[in-house]
């Protein structure tokens, strides 16, 4: 008797399970759909619109003259030296800030990881202040610090060669970019350090201990055990910050508004479309900026095998 009923029961169970699985799948899609559709709507729709608009000669000041011009806008931009200078500034800011932040962020992560109990909470609280502060506020804080009118850095730093009371930090590209990058680094190092901290926590403790037992120095343990084990976390942190740095806007807008060769691509897009109402040309800049960021992500994922899905996702 039992030999007969067993398969029957099993198939019955399977039917129940598959019905259950179906209703589970339906519920899953229903729950995920609103968020998913809104994300598509707020991002996919505008970018498709931007691609479309970028093919037209279209100024809001003369909407009747809207005319299909194909890829002419892209040609205009790519042959304009301003674009290449802005791309250079953007790349410079991205490379410098990410490199500095990676080192500073790693040191901060080490401090947070190893700190004694009484200081650990304090350090975490303090680094969250720059993380949470409004970027524009950070930009104003650094701007006023160095400003020739209301600042005090000229008198604080007067012992440095080249710094005196008449130095206007925001009247030439090099010094202005220095302060802009300082403000960016201050504001975003905490984020990178928290990403690295969680990577640090994943390095198996017995590995570093075993290395210590085997007589490895601190430096050897760092470079041979800890860093290789954190590679994935470092790559994700670099990619995220690089893409974030590439779209820098706020600090430059506040401090120089792009003057003296400090303009980044985001500002060019803003100035073209919102400032001059050249929707066609501005859309083309926006699309190029988007393609640059997509290219960075593509290179990171394909070339360096950064697994972004490791980021809390399906595991």
């Amino acid at each position: 008797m039992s030999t007969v009923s067993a398969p029957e029961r099993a198939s019955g169970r399977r039917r129940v399970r598959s019905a259950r699985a179906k209703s589970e799948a339906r519920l899953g899609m229903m729950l995920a759909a609103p968020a998913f559709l809104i994300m598509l709507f707020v991002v996919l729709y505008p970018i498709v619109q931007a691609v479309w608009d970028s093919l037209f000669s279209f100024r809001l000041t003369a909407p009747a003259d809207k005319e299909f011009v194909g890829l002419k806008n892209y040609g205009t931009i790519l042959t304009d030296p301003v674009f290449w200078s802005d791309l250079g500034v953007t790349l410079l800011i991205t490379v410098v800030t990410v490199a500095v932040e990676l080192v500073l962020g790693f040191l901060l992560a080490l401090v947070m990881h190893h700190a004694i109990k009484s200081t650990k909470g304090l350090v975490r609280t303090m680094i969250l202040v720059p993380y949470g502060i409004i970027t524009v506020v950070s930009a104003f804080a650094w701007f006023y610090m160095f400003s020739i009118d209301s600042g005090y850095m000229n008198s604080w730093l007067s012992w440095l060669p080249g710094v005196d009371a008449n130095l206007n930090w925001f009247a030439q590209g090099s010094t202005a970019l220095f302060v802009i990058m300082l403000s960016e680094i201050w504001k975003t190092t905490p984020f990178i350090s928290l990403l690295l901290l969680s990577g640090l926590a994943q390095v198996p403790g017995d590995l570093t201990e075993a290395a210590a037992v085997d007589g490895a120095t601190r430096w050897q343990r760092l470079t041979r055990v800890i860093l290789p084990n954190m590679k994935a976390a470092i790559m994700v942190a670099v990619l995220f910050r690089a893409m974030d740095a590439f779209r820098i806007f706020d600090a430059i807008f506040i401090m120089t508004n792009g003057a003296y060769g400090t303009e980044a691509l985001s500002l060019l897009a803003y100035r073209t479309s919102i400032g001059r109402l050249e929707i066609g040309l501005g859309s083309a800049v926006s699309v190029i900026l988007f393609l640059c960021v997509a290219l960075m992500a593509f290179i990171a994922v394909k070339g360096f095998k950064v697994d972004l899905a490791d980021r809390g996702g399906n595991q």
Partner: protein
Amino acid sequence: MSTVATPDKSGNAPDTSAHGRTEAGRSAAPPARKKSGTGRITLGWWVLTVLIGIWCLFPVFSILATSFKTPSDLSNGRLLPTSWSTVNYEEIFVGGSRELFLTALRNSVGISVIATVVAVVLATLCAYAIARLDFPGKRLVLTVSLMVSMFPVISLVTPLFNVWRTIGLYDTWLGLIIPYLSLTLPISIWTLAAFFKQIPWELDQAAQVDGATPLQAFRKVIVPLAAPGVFTTAIIAFFIAWNDFVYGISLTSTETARPVPAALAFFTGASQFESPTGAISAAAIIVTIPIVLLVLFFQKQIVAGLTNGAVKG
């Protein structure tokens, strides 16, 4: 790894993990030195902490000091005001910049809170599905939200600017809330999905075995367990909405909807020839207060949320 895991070592393994990871890094210091040098090590940590504190808080203190300077004191070339004055706070709360600042503050609070609440509610449903249910397209949702979170905001601004003007959303609250969702939704989904994966599976299944529908299991079992994660996610999403500048200056033209960060860029002095430095500093301090309070009270949760949603697999 296999060379390290000698039988002797694996015997000690549970002990190591039980004592936590903080010990692992410091094991460098031999036990003897630990005993004699504890005081010195503690002092070292405090020195380090103070240095980090100066680096993290100095710019905030700097703008705080600026906000208490009188207009004539601004150019004193020093960090601290010669005499502390509240004239700038009077300017933004009762003086000429009152209208500009208080309206912007109301816009900022309203728009950020609504964008946060909508994002967190939708993300909670979505993240529950991702963490607990098996359905086709799960990976797609995660991939798309990741792509959205990395999207250059300025690329969306041009088309939105044009479309919003046509359909009447330009310079309205709704016209900012919708694009703000592109900032708050993706991070909320990732953070919450990571939180939800840590909630014990069995409770949800046990409830379903006891006859609860998946929806009931969600409401009665998961929601109370998930509340802390949801709350933390809300804080992080709020930070991001509160921080926005690009949408704020591009999609508004008047005080109707302009949030504080954008309004700061349009501040003018009490008179045409007076610099708005003091008023901007005071306004900057006011909008930093909620950030500092949230950080002070929820430091642990915010760190957990940021690191959970990040690299942790």
